[in-house]
């Protein structure tokens, strides 16, 4: 029997939602300050208005729904899924006020793309977007990469019981440290240390390439936030192609790969357990997967004769592959070149890379390396069972921080999420085909949205059909939350209608 949610359930959900909205409104102070700093008072006003509305709504929810009740798993999941929708609306409102978006839906698409670290964009005349709005687009990636709820957990939520339920709901099923709030703070520490290093590196390269100092470091910070959080926005419409710099490309490849490493692995390596980087199933799987898929990409490009030298093949082929595999979405080619110049073999390899993603508990999307490793180990176990005598005991284990014996429930969970991702990729492709896009193009764009990548073959544009925009928004949201919170929200509405 399904139980109908009562008023206390709704009050508890709204109470935590209010707290997170208050946190979100405070993050809008960052673009506001950038606006004031660069003398863009209109843009700063946009964030004052949007921030005020978000803060007042959050405070109202906190005061109207204040209670001391413990949060249930269901409530935690619902808070997370609603948080992402509310963040999309609040952040989208500020961007819509900029006048650089065709409609409010486009601004919401941009914000969801930012928070979900996707990187697909519908911004018009991006090269003239004010610094404040540019900064906000990249901050959404930085916040979304860590997890919007983690931001709130770190500063606003006391007591770790409710915090853990929201932490899990945001597709982070691993704790780096025993306490979930310490885990959130460690995630921030890693991100901020790399933010400082990345901004200085990219800013210096920009300076050496002739950019003005304030522009070089502003671009450095923005591009780093998008690279480490595997987002894919850049301050220029030409994306990374704008910089025409091999050093910039290498630096962003390093940032993208660092962003696709599990935060738990960062912790181990940073605290002296350096061998873990080579033993861990995820880092090994990522290494093998990128290398194998690159052979396919390179073979496809070599046969089609698209690039005439090894270094050009590396700069174009490897860059797009790593960008896709890590879920970043930076491009050093124009969107149409994917369709017009790349062979089908190379395109399919990039689609696979996008679908697979990086590590669990990192900022990437997609199926993820741990699940791929578990499925591979399960397959090996089954093959061994067939080959070996019936009485032989077959035990399979894998190394992820410690040696773990493979259990059926791990395989089941990995397969379930993998199937969900495949369904999401295919559904998006079918919707694309309804709007007359060829299958491979539609699959490419759909996988890019659902795995939170951001590479585009040209379908994503302000003129695309609103239904397709909504489909991609849903894909970005469901893909980022890895389905469970989305299912919980759907279950909540079903219970509200059919429950007793």
């Amino acid at each position, binding site marked *: 029997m399904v139980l109908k949610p009562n008023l206390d359930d709704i009050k508890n959900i709204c109470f935590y939602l209010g707290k997170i909205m208050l946190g979100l409104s405070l993050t809008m102070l960052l673009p506001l300050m950038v606006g004031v700093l660069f003398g863009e008072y209109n843009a700063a006003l946009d964030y004052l208005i949007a921030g005020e509305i978000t803060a007042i709504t959050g405070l109202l929810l906190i005061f109207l729904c204040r209670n001391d009740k413990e949060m249930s798993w269901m409530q935690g999941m619902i808070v997370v899924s609603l948080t992402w929708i509310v963040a999309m609306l609040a952040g989208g409102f500020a961007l819509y006020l900029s006048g650089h978006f065709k409609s409010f839906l486009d601004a919401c698409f941009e914000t969801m793309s930012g928070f979900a670290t996707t990187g697909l964009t519908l911004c018009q005349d991006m090269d003239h977007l004010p610094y404040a709005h540019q900064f906000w687009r990249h901050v959404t990636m930085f916040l979304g990469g860590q997890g919007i709820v983690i931001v709130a957990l770190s500063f606003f939520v006391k007591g770790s019981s409710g915090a853990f339920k929201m932490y899990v709901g945001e597709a982070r099923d691993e704790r780096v440290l025993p306490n979930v709030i310490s885990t959130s703070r460690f995630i921030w520490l890693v991100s901020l*240390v790399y933010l400082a*290093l990345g901004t200085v590196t990219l800013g210096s390269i920009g300076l050496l390439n002739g950019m003005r100092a304030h522009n070089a470091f502003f671009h450095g910070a923005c591009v780093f936030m998008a690279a480490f959080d595997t987002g894919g926005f850049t301050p220029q419409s030409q994306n990374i192609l704008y910089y025409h710099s091999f050093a910039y490309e*290498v630096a962003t*490849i*390093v940032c993208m*790969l*660092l962003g696709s*490493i599990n935060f738990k692995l*960062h912790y181990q*390596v*940073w*605290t*002296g357990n*350096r061998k873990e*980087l080579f033993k861990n199933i995820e*880092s090994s799987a*990522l*290494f093998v997967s*990128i*290398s194998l898929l*690159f*052979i396919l990409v*390179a*073979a496809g490009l*070599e046969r089609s004769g698209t690039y005439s*030298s*090894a*270094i050009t*093949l*590396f700069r174009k*082929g*490897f860059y797009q*592959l*790593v960008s896709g595999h890590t879920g970043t979405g930076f491009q050093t080619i124009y969107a149409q070149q994917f369709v017009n110049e790349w062979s089908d073999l190379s395109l399919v390899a990039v689609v696979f890379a996008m679908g697979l993603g990086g590590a669990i508990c990192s900022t990437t999307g997609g199926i993820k390396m741990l699940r791929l490793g578990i499925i591979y180990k399960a397959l090996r176990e089954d093959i061994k069972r067939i080959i070996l005598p019936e009485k032989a005991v077959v035990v399979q284990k894998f190394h992820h921080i410690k040696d773990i014996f493979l259990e059926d429930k791990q395989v089941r969970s990995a397969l379930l999420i993998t199937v969900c991702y495949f369904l999401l990729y295919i559904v998006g492709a079918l919707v694309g085909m309804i709007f007359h896009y060829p299958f491979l193009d539609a699959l490419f764009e759909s996988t890019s949205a659902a795995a939170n990548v951001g590479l585009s073959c040209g379908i994503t544009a302000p003129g695309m059909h609103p239904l397709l925009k909504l489909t991609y928004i849903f894909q970005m949201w469901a893909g980022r939350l890895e389905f469970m919170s989305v299912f919980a929200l759907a279950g909540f509405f079903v219970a509200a209608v059919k429950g007793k």
Partner: protein
Amino acid sequence: MKLLYMQKTLFNAVLGIVLEIVYTAAIMLVSYVVCLALYFRQWS
């Protein structure tokens, strides 16, 4: 004692960061060798 512990922690973190960057460089190197191998095959 506390200073010594902090130094060790910092040393481990810096070494960790360097190692992670080496890991990314290794991925790039393998792929670049693939590129070279493909083009070497074409020339020979």
